[in-house]
């Protein structure tokens, strides 16, 4: 038994050596997506890569969280689990849905914004848990296993653009459905003298598309910057090839990690859902 432990210990010590022997350290390498299962439909690239795997996993985890907290064994005599589920539901109801959506639309759009909130929280959170879903491999007892790594699917722009596009499309579909196309597009333009129209109309149309960009880039850049900060601090040790730096770098990286996990992950999920609710709500009931 002891001999086995010693063997495992030496094996573990051997891994950093192979990692160091790789030579050039390139931070951008973390964000290149290699195709795991190539799927090409004409010009469409639907390949399964790291980001897709993370999305699928977090969709599964979101469902498990939702069902586990809010469907299984709930009743008059609440347990701590049920209290947690109710707390999440209450935040989604009072802070997200009721802030943005008009009363007549809550029934229809509450599920969407609540799902967005839970899903983005999960996908962000999974990005900070080391999971064996990475492109690099190491050998353990002759079996090739992926190394543990942290990667957030939301730190790739295509994922957040897809999420933002959903809100964008729903906003305009709902706006047209509730107000009719003419009245809806008319509601984009504020009350200004007619002479200012050539200036205002392009700006307002541009503003609608800026929403799409700001919604996606906010989430993307937040997660990218968070991961990059941690990677930079840890990477300093490898770039400068000086282990003593770990005394400074690791506490800093841990501090940023905790900041991201405690604050940024939840806030970004909340913000994305709240802004989606506000956009959809303001399309359903334009202010004038």
């Amino acid at each position, binding site marked *: 038994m002891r001999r086995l432990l010693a063997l495992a210990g030496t094996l573990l010590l051997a891994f950093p050596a192979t990692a160091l022997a790789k030579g050039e350290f390139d931070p951008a390498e973390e964000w290149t997506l290699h195709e795991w299962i190539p799927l090409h439909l004409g010009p469409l690239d639907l390949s399964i890569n790291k980001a897709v795997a993370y999305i699928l996993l977090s969709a599964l985890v979101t469902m498990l969280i939702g069902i586990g907290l809010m469907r299984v064994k709930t009743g008059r005599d609440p347990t701590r689990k049920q209290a947690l589920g109710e707390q999440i539901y209450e935040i989604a109801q009072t*802070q997200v849905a009721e*802030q943005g959506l008009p009363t007549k639309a809550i029934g229809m759009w509450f599920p969407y914004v609540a799902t967005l909130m839970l899903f983005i929280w999960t996908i962000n959170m999974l990005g900070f848990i080391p999971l064996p879903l990475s492109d690099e491999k190491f050998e353990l007892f002759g079996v090739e296993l992926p190394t543990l790594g942290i990667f957030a699917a939301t730190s790739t722009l295509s994922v957040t653009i897809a999420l933002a596009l959903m809100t964008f499309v729903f906003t305009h579909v709902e706006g047209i459905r509730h107000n009719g196309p003419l009245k809806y597009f008319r509601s984009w333009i504020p009350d200004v003298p007619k002479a200012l129209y050539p200036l205002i109309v392009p700006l307002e149309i541009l503003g609608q598309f800026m929403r799409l960009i700001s919604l996606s*880039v906010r989430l993307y*850049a937040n997660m*990218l*910057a968070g991961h990059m900060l941690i990677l930079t601090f840890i990477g300093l040790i490898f770039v400068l090839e000086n282990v003593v730096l770990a005394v400074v770098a690791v506490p800093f990286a841990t501090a940023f990690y905790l900041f991201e996990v405690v604050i940024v992950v939840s*806030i970004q999920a*909340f*913000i994305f859902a709240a802004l989606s609710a506000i956009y959809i709500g303001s399309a359903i009931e334009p202010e004038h």
Partner: protein
Amino acid sequence: MDFSVLAAEAAGNVDAGKAIALALGIGLGSLGAGVGIGNIFGSMIQSVARQPELRGELQGIMWLGFALTEAVVFYGLIGGLLAYVLI
């Protein structure tokens, strides 16, 4: 040293220009966002001191404002990264 000398030295060195672009993007972005976030939390403290019973309602708005302001840093970061990567 005046700026024309700096500019002349940087002109031959594209990497230096890239580094300056990236640093300016992040630096100016965080400058604005720092002021903005300070404003938000300052106002939050003031309003809770005046009307402590509104804390719950205000908190949601505060975090919304915080995230909207904080995002400005990242627009700067993305701009800087674009300059760094594309040019």
